[in-house]
């Protein structure tokens, strides 16, 4: 069993790097996109609101696997049109296709998280800011956004982990991430322990991330009284709940 690990460790390592690359690039781009969209989503103008709602609903209501197939193989059907538009170089590459799909998916989830967080900022705090004559922009900058991100922080951490795990399907479009390397190793050895090693790798990555995220959270929210919350034995796992789907 250990022999197997030594033989395949370099490949596993490559795969893990690919997994991390896929996750963090798509989650980061999605983080940039989701904020303006979340603010627009709260607008009362339905012409602005409706397309965002449809976008969010579609990407949250369909399997990531189906989305990936649609983008990758679906775009292949429109090679000529995409070449004319000068976009084929982008869709030709499986890595770009995966990043594109994962980014859209993560954007949809992050919009929902931020929308909830923006809603949770108490109107009293906003009124207080209005009362001292702050501009709308300033209120967003100084009051609403810092507060909203603090509220959204744990859910955003969950989203990163969901993406990390969801990204395991990238091997169906030839990307050799950790899961892809694992399946390859299994097809060469038929040895079930390959999957156990992969499980260990994934657990290491996710646990390391959970710990890092919680440390970051504690730094960012030093001023908030966490008495009795941080000491619960279960919060480390609670950070990973899949509840970021909650709308």
């Amino acid at each position: 069993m250990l022999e197997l690990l030594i033989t395949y460790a370099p490949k596993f390592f490559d795969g893990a790097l690919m997994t991390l690359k896929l996750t963090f690039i798509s989650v980061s781009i999605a983080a940039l996109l989701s904020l303006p969209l979340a603010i627009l989503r709260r607008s009362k103008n339905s012409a602005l609101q409706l397309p965002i709602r449809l976008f969010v609903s579609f990407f949250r209501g369909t399997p990531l696997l189906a989305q990936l197939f649609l983008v990758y193989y679906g775009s292949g059907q429109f090679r000529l049109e995409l070449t004319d538009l000068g976009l084929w170089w982008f869709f030709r590459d499986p890595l770009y296709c995966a990043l594109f799909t994962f980014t859209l998916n993560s954007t949809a989830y992050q919009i929902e998280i931020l929308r909830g967080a923006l809603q949770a900022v108490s109107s009293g705090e906003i009124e207080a800011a209005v009362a001292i004559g702050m501009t709308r922009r300033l209120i967003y900058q100084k009051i609403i956004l810092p507060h909203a991100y603090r509220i959204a922080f744990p859910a955003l951490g969950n989203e990163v982990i969901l993406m990390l795990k969801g990204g395991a399907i990238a091997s169906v479009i030839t990307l050799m991430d950790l899961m892809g390397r694992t399946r390859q190793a299994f097809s060469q050895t038929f040895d079930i322990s390959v999957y156990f090693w992969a499980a260990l790798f994934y657990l290491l990555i996710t646990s390391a991330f959970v710990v890092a995220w919680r440390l970051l959270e504690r730094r960012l929210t030093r001023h908030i009284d966490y008495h009795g919350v941080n000491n619960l034995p279960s919060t480390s796992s609670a950070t990973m709940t899949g509840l970021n789907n909650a709308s």
Partner: protein
Amino acid sequence: MNKHISALALSLLLSVIPFSGVNAAEKTIRIGTEGAYPPFNFFNADGKLAGFDVELAQALCDKMQTKCTFVAQDWDGIIPALLAGKYDVIVASMFITEKRKLKVDFSDPYQKSAMTFVIGKDSTLTDFSPEGMDGKIIGAQGSTTQGDFLNALYPNSDIRLYPTQDAVNLDLISGRIDAQVGDMIPMLDWTKKSTDGNCCTLAGEPITDPKYVGDGVGMALRQEDDELRLKLNEALAAVIADGTYKKINDKFFSVNILTLQ
């Protein structure tokens, strides 16, 4: 009364579920195939398995006068599932290679094996040596001999491994990959016979190195199933001798795939 019935039902259930078909004489042979590898094995629009492998296997079963059922299984898991007992024999145009022989036994070959490069018709590629393919994108189905061949000999090419042959074909059509390596016969069939394969053509010399293509194509069985293997070999010889093989062959191919002549 009720007690008796439930006891009876229970014993019936027990006898059926875990030890089904213990009686060797009436045993149904379960045949595993991929179902994504036309024209050898594929699903038709009725959702039924069809193709050369399937018809040949059926002919063998008729010859042996046993009942057969077909099970579709992804290529990746096709040997593990055989070993786990999901079916008794793989008839899925599998090359007889040394590596596979470590895990399974093979019947006598029922096709000759060779691999080939396939490129788009508008492609300018002519040199298919590792140097000539330097920096090019080559696709193949994962967990196959083609994949092993590419990984071993084409370290400077971008090798992409797909879950199914269909997916490789799709990406060759769309031009995502510069070339693919596939089994000779299905590639021949695909480029010559199907409308979507019209895009592409075979290229370069056939790859026949036994190190990669092995000793032909065989049916794979669990190593302890010698009895079934011998019966299959007998039946195979018989269907070749009585012309059944040729009939099925001609239904699907223009060449004789047993000899590749």
